[in-house]
C-alpha cells in the first residue's frame, strides 16, 4: 500500500514537473522576446524568433527520451556487437562468426522463419474470415468481442492457458488437458505436445495466432466496411456469386490494409519472447532469436557482445518493414 502511495506521489511529481517545464519555459520565452505591446518592427522580429524556438521547447522532453531509450541504444548495440563479453575488447566480426557456427542460433533462426511464415498468415486469414462472416449476422458484435478478447491477455497468461490445454498425463489415466482428452476420446494415444520436436513449434505458434486474430479482425473489419457499396451492388447486378464478390471485388480493395496487418504481426513475431520463455524456455528445439538474446544477456554472467549481435539480427529483419512504413508515411504527408 505504502508502495502504491509512493508510486502515486512520484507520478504526481513527475507530471507536475513536466507541466512546470512546459509552462515555465514558455513563460520565459515570452518574457525574453515579448511580442505583445511592442512596436511593429520589434514585435514582428520577436514573434519570428519565438516561433522558431517554441517548437523545440515542445519537443525537447520527447526528443530526449527517444534519444536515450531508442536512438542511442541502437547505435550502442551495433557498436557492442563488434566487442567481447563485457563490451570493452574489440573482436571485429568474431561474434558474427561465432553466431553462424552456433547450432542454437541456427535452430533459432530456422524457427523464427517458421514463425514468420505461419503466424502472420494464419492470424490474417482467420481475422479476415471472422471479419467477413460476423458482418452478416445479428450477434456479430458479441462474436467479435469474444474473439478480440485474447488481445488483452498477457503472453504469459496466454501461455498458462494453453499449457493447460496441452497438458499431458500418462496413457491410461484420465486426461485433464482438453487436447489430449479429445485425442483419447477418438481413440488416439495421448501425447506430450510441447516436447514433440518440430510440431511443438506449431503448438507455440497457435498461442500467438489465438492472440493476434482479434487484432487482424478489427482492422480488416473496418476496411471491409469502408468498401464502397456501389462496387458490390454492381457485381451483384452482373450476377457474381458471394465467393466471387469476396475474392474478386472485396479482397483487392483492402489489399493495402491486409499488408499493414501482415507487417504489424510480422514485427511482433520477430520479437516473440514471453511465450517461448514460459512454455519451453527454448528446450525441445523451440528456441527463437529474442529468447536466445535474453539468455545470452544473463548466461554465464552475461555476454553483452553476443546478446547485442543477436539483437542486430532481429533489427536487420525489421529494417525492410521500417523503410516501407516510412515511405508510406511520407506519401501520406504529401497528400495532406
Amino acid at each position, binding site marked *: *500500500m505504502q*508502495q*502504491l502511495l509512493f*508510486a502515486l506521489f512520484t*507520478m504526481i511529481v*513527475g*507530471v507536475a514537473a*513536466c*507541466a512546470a517545464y512546459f509552462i515555465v519555459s514558455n513563460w520565459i520565452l515570452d518574457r525574453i522576446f515579448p511580442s*505583445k505591446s511592442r512596436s511593429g518592427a520589434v514585435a514582428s522580429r520577436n514573434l519570428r524568433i*519565438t*516561433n522558431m524556438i517554441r517548437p523545440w521547447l515542445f*519537443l525537447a522532453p520527447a*526528443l530526449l*527520451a527517444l534519444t536515450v531509450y*531508442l*536512438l542511442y*541504444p*541502437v547505435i550502442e*548495440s551495433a557498436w*557492442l556487437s563488434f566487442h567481447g563479453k563485457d563490451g570493452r575488447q574489440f573482436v571485429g566480426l568474431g561474434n558474427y562468426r561465432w553466431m553462424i557456427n552456433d547450432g542454437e542460433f541456427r535452430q533459432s533462426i530456422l524457427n523464427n522463419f517458421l514463425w514468420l511464415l505461419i503466424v502472420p498468415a494464419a492470424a490474417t486469414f*482467420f481475422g479476415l474470415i*471472422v471479419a467477413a462472416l460476423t*458482418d*452478416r*449476422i445479428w450477434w456479430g458484435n458479441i*462474436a467479435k468481442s469474444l474473439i*478480440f*478478447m485474447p488481445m*488483452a*491477455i*498477457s503472453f504469459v*497468461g496466454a501461455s*498458462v*492457458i494453453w*499449457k*493447460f490445454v496441452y*497438458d499431458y498425463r500418462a496413457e491410461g489415466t*484420465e*486426461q*485433464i*488437458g482438453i487436447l489430449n482428452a479429445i485425442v483419447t476420446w477418438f481413440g488416439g494415444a495421448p501425447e506430450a505436445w510441447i516436447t514433440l520436436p518440430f510440431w511443438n513449434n506449431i503448438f507455440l505458434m497457435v498461442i500467438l495466432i*489465438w492472440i493476434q486474430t482479434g487484432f487482424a479482425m478489427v482492422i480488416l473489419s473496418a476496411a471491409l466496411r469502408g468498401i464502397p457499396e456501389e462496387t458490390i451492388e454492381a457485381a*451483384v447486378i452482373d450476377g457474381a456469386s*458471394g465467393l466471387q464478390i469476396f475474392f474478386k471485388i472485396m479482397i483487392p480493395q483492402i489489399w493495402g490494409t491486409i499488408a499493414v496487418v501482415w507487417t*504489424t504481426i510480422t514485427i511482433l513475431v*520477430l520479437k516473440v*519472447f514471453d511465450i517461448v*520463455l*514460459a512454455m519451453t524456455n527454448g528446450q525441445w528445439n523451440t528456441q527463437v*532469436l529474442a529468447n536466445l538474446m535474453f539468455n545470452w*544477456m544473463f548466461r554465464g554472467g552475461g555476454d*553483452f557482445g553476443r546478446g547485442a549481435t543477436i*539483437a*542486430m539480427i532481429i*533489427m536487420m529483419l*525489421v529494417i525492410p518493414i*521500417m523503410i516501407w512504413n516510412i515511405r*508510406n508515411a511520407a506519401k501520406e*504527408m504529401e497528400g495532406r
Partner: protein
Amino acid sequence: MIGSSARRTPLTFVVHLSVLLLVVLWTLPTAGLLISSLRDKDQIAVSGWWTALAPSHQNAVYRAPPPDAQVEENGRHVIRGNVFDGGNGTVSAFGPSVQTPDEFKAGETATLSNGVAMTVAENGDFTISSTEPMKGRRGERIFYTSSVPPQFTLDNYREVLSAQGLGRSFINSLTVAIPSTVIPILIAAFAAYALAWMKFPGRAILIALVVGLLVVPLQMSLIPLLRLYNDIGAQFGVTPKGYVGIWLAHTGFGLPLAIYLLRNYIAGLPKEIIESARVDGASDFDIFVKIVLPLSFPALASFAIFQFLWTWNDLLVALVFLGSRDDQLVLTGRLVNLLGSRGGNWEILTASAFITIIVPLIVFFSLQRFLVRGLLAGSVKGG
C-alpha cells in the same frame, strides 16, 4: 451485403455455424482456466474441467481410528466411522490394500487376513469388527473409490494471494503500470502538437524518425540501457533496479506510438479552429492547453489503454530493469516463476493466471470502443 441474393437461408445457416465454431474455439481455453481455478484442487488433478458439473471419481485412503476406539457389541469388537468424516460423497467400491481399492462393492463385507471384517456403506459409513479384541496402535487403512459431487471453492485464490505472493506482485504491477501510462501522455501530447501544427525546419525528418522508431525491436535497447543503468547506479551509489528506472524505460518505449497516434489525431482537427485562435493572438501554448488538449481526449484515452495493457502485460522490461527478487516480481514474472516451480499444481497456476489477466480483461471489456479506435489509428506499430 452479399447475402442479399436468393440463396440466403442455407448460406446464413453455415455462416452462423462457422462463427459459432470459431467463437467456441477462441473462448474455450480461457473458460477452462476460469472454471479450473474455481474447482477443488483434488478434483482438478483427476478430472477435466469440462466435467466440473459431473461428480468426479477418485481413489482415496482413510485411516480408521486405532483399536483404542473399539467398543464391544453383541460379543464383537467394533469400530465405526465415516470415511468422508461427515462430508458428502458416494462410495462405489473399497478394498483393504492399495493394490485393490475396488475389490469389494459398497455394502459388501471384506474379511481381512487377520480375521477382521470390514464393510463400507455407500454413504461412507464403515464398520470394522472382530471376534477377538483388536490390537496395535494404528487403525486399519480403508482404500475406497468414491464419487464426489462437484465442489467449487475460492480456496485457490486465497492460497495464491497470500502464500504464493500474488498479492504483493499485484501491487508491484500497479506501481509499474500507472505512472508508466500517465507520464508519456503529457510529453507526447506536446511533441505531437508541435509536429502537427507548428512550422519549423526538420519537421518532416522528425516525423519520419518517429515512424521509424515505432518498429525498433525492444531487444536493441536492453543491453545498452542495462549498461547505462549500471553505470549510473555505480556513479551515484544507488541501485540500478528500481521503479523510476522502469517508468522512464516504459515512457521511452511508449513514446513513438504515443506521438504517432496523437499527431495523426491532432493533425486531423479542423484547421479553422486553430487558425482563428491564432488570429485572435493566442500563443501556441494557449492553443494547445485550451483547445487541442480537450479536443484530443479520445486519442489520449486510446493511447492510455494501449500503454496500460502493454505495461501491465509486459514481462521483458520488468525482468531486465526491475530484477527478479521475490518482492520485486510483477504479476507476469511471478507467473513464469510459478510455471517453473509449481508446474503440475494447476489449482495454483490457474488461479494465479486468472488474477494476472483480470485487470486487463476489465479494462478491455469496459473500454473496448477506445481500444478499437486506437488500433485503427495506429496499426503501423508492432505491438
